[in-house]
């Protein structure tokens, strides 16, 4: 039985205008990700990895082409619908963690839920569960400044997970971490994919990350060069 396709790019091209120069970040890219996939997006700096993830995560618009999410064309959705899509279906993990510095680990994870129609009780249950899942049950009340890099990234992962998204997009999640911490973060992401069938797409150069993923695509000069199982 084939897995359900979650997100799909069809003939997506993205061009930027920098001064008088036009830069083509993506060139006629076709791609799809299905439920339970764990895909790593590799490629040199400036190859278009981040643009690819941004468009897939609906935080950027393509110049041409179509984006489908659960079979629905979201290319031309209005801002409100895109906010709802990201709030309910997509989780983001950033290279620099991007936590709110004045909020504790618990509050950072709780933040996206405050704008959903969820009761206080359910928020508490969900936040506690995901923080336990990422191993931070003892650090819930700590501000980001009092957490290590690895712990911060775990909080970021918990924040991405807490809305039970269908797709998690992580842009270089281990780039700011030491080797040992990076391994533990990738183990966590791998475990989430294995045990909870969370669909994950990670952009990374890190060989360990690439090794951990189930599939890999390589982007170069805005094109997907190859798509293969690791």
């Amino acid at each position, binding site marked *: 039985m084939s897995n359900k396709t979650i997100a799909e790019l069809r003939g997506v091209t993205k061009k930027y205008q920098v001064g008088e120069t036009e830069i083509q970040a993506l060139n006629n890219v076709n791609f799809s990700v299905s439920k339970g996939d764990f895909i790593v997006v590799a490629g040199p700096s400036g190859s278009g990895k981040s643009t690819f993830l941004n468009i897939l995560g609906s935080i950027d618009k393509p110049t041409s082409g179509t984006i489908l999410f659960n079979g629905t064309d979201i290319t031309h959705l209005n801002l409100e619908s895109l906010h709802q899509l990201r709030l309910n279906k997509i989780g983001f993990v950033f290279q620099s963690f991007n936590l709110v510095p004045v909020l504790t680990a618990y509050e950072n994870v*709780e933040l996206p839920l405050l704008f959903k129609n969820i009761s206080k009780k359910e928020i508490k249950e969900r936040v506690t569960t995901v923080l336990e899942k990422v191993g931070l049950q003892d650090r819930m009340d700590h501000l980001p400044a009092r957490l290590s890099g690895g712990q911060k990234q775990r909080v970021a992962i918990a924040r991405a997970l807490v809305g039970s998204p269908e797709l998690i997009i992580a842009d270089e999640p281990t780039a700011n971490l030491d080797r040992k911490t990076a391994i533990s973060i990738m183990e966590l992401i791998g475990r989430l994919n294995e045990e909870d069938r969370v669909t994950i797409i990670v952009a990374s150069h890190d060989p360990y990350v690439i090794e951990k993923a189930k599939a890999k695509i390589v982007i170069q000069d805005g094109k997907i060069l190859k798509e293969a199982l690791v």
Partner: protein
Amino acid sequence: MILHLSKILHLAYRNLFRNKRRTLFAIFIAASGYAAMAIALGYYGFSIYGLQEMTIRNGFGGSGGTGHLQIKDNRSLESQEKYTLEFGLTDYQNMVKTIKNQPEVDYVLPRIEFGGLVTTGDKSFPFIGYGVESLHEAALRGGLSDINPKLQLGEEIKPLENNKYGIILGRKLANALGVKIGDPLMLYGATVQGAVNAIDVELVGVMSTGLNETDKYYLLTHIDLVQKLVNTDKISLISVMFKNRDSLEHKVSKIQNILASAKGQDNNNKTIGVITWETLAEYYTAAKDLFNMIFSFMGIIILTIVLLSCWNIMNMTTMERIREIGTLRAIGLKNSNITFIFLLEAFLISIIGLVIGIIAQVILSNIINALTIEMPPVPGMNQGYALQVYTFSPYHVFIAVAVVLAITLSSLSAFFIIRKLTIVESLEHA
């Protein structure tokens, strides 16, 4: 939709501590903006109230206060008298007695306005005179010292009580005549029949009316003396002072009803009308309009400074958090959600600033009041007054709301910045 306001408010509160110096500065702007406007309003409130009471109790130019209302012949408002007391009130004693019996009435003051010549024998000068019941008139004018301790009025009229042939002259008129207290003088005036009459008087006092120009012509004496001089039992008007200004309209209509029933019985009093103090107070109305314009202009300037300063601060705050804003938008928060957080931050700043501003305003107002700083006389007048400010008036609530609104709305700068940037641009912001 469940709104987790307390949590979002908590986030806004925590954000205040990100850049403490900037937050303190914003709070200082809110506090000083409120305090400045509130003290100015307190001064305005006192000035307007003082002006009202001055108009009602003392008047400008020595003619006596308007009282809360005046009873006079309506024709005197529209045309000049051909002879003294042409439009005077007859049989006023009964009217005075009836009105005095009303429990809400404090003073009923009959007055005569007249003119003539005052002479020493060697020198003569024209005067504009007022005949009054001196004891009540002094008490009424003395009431102003309760409002403003620097204004010691009323005392100068009291010598009239001991001498039924006494007169008080304006300072400049007395100087021009070269007379001192105790000197004999003679008053010349026209009787109501058109003849010239003269009466011997004694100078019992010299006073300043507050207006330099009026001091050259001013004369004050007993109402009985004036009636003797002009050979009549009429008076020009009756000034009525209530115990307070509460429900003034009701009190005025009550007096009107009393007069209406009196008119029914007396054909001579058919044209008598009741005129409220505001209708008579031309100087007060002009001064109030001027004050309104000055203080409104000042208020708008202070409020604009508060708004622009806070707008600038919120701009800086937003620019510092662009990357975080990008993250929040990426994880699904709407622009309006993020703007709401900024609005709450600004609201908290405005509330904290307001509380500090109120405390500062009350302390400063009390210090100013305790110092009884003497203000210079207003143009055309020769008496200063003590600077006093009211600590509270209903308009202070309006200022508080205006400050809170201005500062809260300044956070909309965040909305305009957020709206211009895409999420990717925000996330890439250094």
